[in-house]
């Protein structure tokens, strides 16, 4: 290929992906690494990239310790409850104790945070959420990152991590290509903070054809945070914990502010409250610790998000759909009506477009809700991601190998969607995790852990060839056929994506099977996944843009295989409403009150699965009771 090779050497901290976590990492690493070389490699333009590209109307994680609202452990208990016990509490506590400082910075930088006129505290949407005018949230944090980094490379799709040739299992940088010029980029670096975001589009979306991009998580969230790490042999956790979201139908408009601030509520197709009637039966399936139908009014334990989905899904399957959001009452108040619309415009414009197109005025008509296709991510109400080390003053031995947020590959850190077991981080928590990872990365270098890193020319050449292979493949075989996209020697990225989505949907518990799967289905899925993996060796890219889609697909494929492996390993239905194991419908705390951990051998592609203990934070009083 006639593309140039561009080598960026002597980098100290390389940040791959600069969404919320990556911008946080860039900003913070400049403070701890004043003389260090900090470089960002981002697939899009950091001013508008990642899940926050179009903005947000709420910051979902803010303790408010300053206003006497919550302490970090309160948030840990909440996240633990919401995730049916399965979280890394050391990481959660750590994120929660730092998150307020990130939010206070955002306000100082110019992000408009709303305030409660009576108390002077930030305007709360719910116990953990505060309301913002966040259309420009991403450009604001991007400014901070740009001010801090030595260099920002936009439009670089990172495809692989570089590994140290001198020491096994140590990272040495990353490679990728520029999606505009086609140039091959080599970044040699002492440490890497992987912040390349979660995965949309690995399950078949409800939208079809032209609308296929209307997914809840951004269509450019290509699971690269997982693909890059899995391929490098990093251990992963909780990959079975995919999330299904209840959202406004088709547009996937957010419901948080509607429920929490506007005080809207849901009804089934015949106008009844339906949620509570599914809970008694469900509490037999999951146990009283997680859903106490009698004691809920006393304990005030929140009902886990997945269990609410369970009620929704079952009601619809019983023929009493659609589920409606009752907006007609709240929207009579013009102030609340305006907030309702702003909420979309600030983060999911597509929903406003849809209501305008279909003449749905929520003031006079209660709009429909839906449950989405599943997503794989680590920062929302779900905790997929890498198995990372915890903070030194909190993490127990099994969770600790020296550097906060370092994966099991030396010098390689994860934050945001990339870090596993830390749900409910959201935007502010992801940014905070980026900061924590960056400080640890600088310390790792200062401790001399990155001495003597070597990257052989052979490794660089091998990766270079691999990256451009889809374009070579296209050139060689396209003339075998007259025209069109049907070729016996290759598939294109869209065809591959369709195949992946169909496979995941039908075998791993997507929408069309009502989120249901079992041992047999998962095994068939794995077999077909292997064949898809083989075919991806023969994927063809017509141009550089298609090459981008080809690599996104490879990262999605690696993420998906991990989802299948993990779902097969956990022989229980831990999160009814996110997925069901039809052959193990009950939650089984005897055997499965554990975190699942996997590793894919980078040489053979073989998976090994293990269980890791679940440590819970308890106060002195709780300990006495226990």
């Amino acid at each position: 290929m006639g593309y140039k090779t561009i080598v960026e050497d002597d980098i100290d901290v390389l940040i791959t992906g600069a969404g919320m976590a990556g911008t946080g990492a860039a900003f913070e690493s400049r403070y701890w690494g004043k003389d260090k070389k900090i470089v960002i490699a981002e697939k899009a333009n950091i001013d508008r990239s990642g899940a926050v590209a179009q903005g947000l109307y709420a910051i979902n994680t803010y303790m408010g310790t300053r206003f006497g609202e919550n302490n970090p452990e309160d948030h840990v208990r909440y996240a633990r409850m919401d995730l049916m016990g399965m979280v890394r509490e050391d990481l959660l506590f750590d994120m929660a104790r730092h998150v307020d400082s990130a939010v206070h910075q955002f306000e100082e930088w110019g992000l408009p945070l709303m305030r409660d006129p009576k108390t002077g505290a930030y305007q709360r949407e719910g116990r953990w959420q505060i309301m913002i005018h966040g259309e420009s949230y991403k450009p604001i944090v991007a400014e901070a990152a740009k001010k801090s980094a030595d260099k920002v490379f936009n439009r670089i799709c990172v495809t692989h991590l570089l590994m140290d040739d001198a020491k096994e299992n140590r990272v040495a940088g990353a490679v990728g290509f520029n999606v505009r010029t086609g140039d091959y980029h080599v970044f040699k670096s002492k440490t890497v903070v992987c912040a390349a975001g979660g995965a949309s589009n690995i399950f078949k979306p409800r939208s079809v054809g032209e609308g296929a991009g209307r997914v809840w998580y951004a269509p450019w969230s290509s699971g690269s945070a997982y693909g890059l790490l899995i391929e490098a042999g990093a251990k992963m956790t909780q990959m079975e914990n995919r999330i299904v979201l209840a959202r406004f139908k088709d547009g996937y408009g957010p419901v948080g502010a509607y429920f929490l601030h506007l005080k809207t509520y849901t009804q089934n197709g015949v106008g009844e409250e339906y949620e509570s009637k599914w809970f008694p039966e469900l509490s037999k399936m999951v146990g009283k610790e997680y859903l106490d139908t009698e004691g809920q009014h006393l304990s005030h334990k929140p009902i886990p998000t997945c269990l609410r989905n369970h009620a929704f899904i079952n009601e619809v399957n019983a023929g009493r759909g659609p589920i409606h959001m009752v907006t007609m009452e709240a929207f009579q108040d013009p102030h609340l009506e305006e907030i309702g619309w702003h909420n979309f415009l600030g983060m999911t414009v597509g929903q406003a477009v849809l209501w305008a197109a279909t003449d749905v005025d929520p003031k006079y008509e209660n709009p429909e809700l839906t449950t989405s296709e599943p997503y794989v991510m680590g920062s929302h109400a779900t905790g997929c991601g890498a198995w990372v080390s915890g903070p030194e003053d909190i993490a127990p031995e099994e969770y600790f190998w020296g550097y906060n947020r370092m994966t099991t590959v030396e010098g390689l850190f994860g934050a945001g969607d990339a870090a596993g077991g830390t749900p409910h981080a959201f935007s502010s928590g992801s940014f905070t995790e980026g900061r924590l990872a960056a400080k640890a990365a600088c310390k790792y270098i200062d401790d001399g852990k990155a001495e003597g890193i070597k990257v052989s020319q052979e490794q660089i050449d091998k990766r270079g060839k691999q990256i451009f292979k889809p374009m070579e493949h296209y050139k060689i075989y396209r003339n075998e056929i007259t025209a069109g996209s049907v070729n016996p020697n290759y598939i294109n990225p869209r065809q591959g994506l369709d195949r992946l989505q169909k496979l995941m949907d039908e075998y791993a518990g997507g929408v069309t099977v009502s989120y249901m799967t079992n041992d047999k289905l998962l095994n068939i899925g794995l077999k077909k996944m292997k064949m898809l993996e083989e075919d991806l060796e023969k994927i063809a890219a017509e141009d550089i843009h298609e090459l981008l889609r080809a690599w996104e697909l490879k990262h999605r494929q690696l993420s998906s295989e991990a989802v299948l492996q993990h779902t097969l390993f956990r022989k229980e239905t831990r999160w009814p409403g996110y997925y069901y194991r039809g052959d193990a419908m009950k939650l089984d705390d005897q055997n499965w009150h554990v975190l699942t951990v996997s590793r894919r051998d980078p040489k053979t592609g073989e998976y090994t699965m293990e269980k890791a203990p679940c440590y819970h934070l308890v106060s002195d009083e709780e300990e006495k009771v226990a």
Partner: protein
Amino acid sequence: MPTFVYMTRCDGCGHCVDICPSDIMHIDTTTRRAYNIEPNMCWECYSCVKACPHNAIDVRGYADFAPLGHSVRVIRDEEKGVIAWRIKFRNGKKDMNLLAPITTKPWGTAIPKLSEESAPSKDMTDSQLLFNEPKYIRLDEGGLHTLESNGLKMKEGVYY
């Protein structure tokens, strides 16, 4: 489409190409104007719409569920720090104008240049604190939360 470009308004400046997070706004080599090369990977995020200096880009809702005849337009004014929206319903019954702030400070002015901050002390480096902490955590005298300060222990396999 979902985004599309009006032929008469676009001058091929490339701002939309520069910003689209999905890499799907490209300049057509014959007309030298921008277009959406892959509508089924468009999120309707409006990043390109907001970036276009000539208001040449518009959105037509996704064909698989959105009927024709609606419009959601936007103007983002960085100087004034506001964003203005206009939403018109298909049946013409609703036509809304909405305005919101996007920043409280002129762009970038309030973000510290960390290379100009004094270097962190050894104590800071060894502690669990991040830049500007503990001050920024509570904005008062309160320090960083630890397990000890909050009376907590890590216990294996414990339910609440």
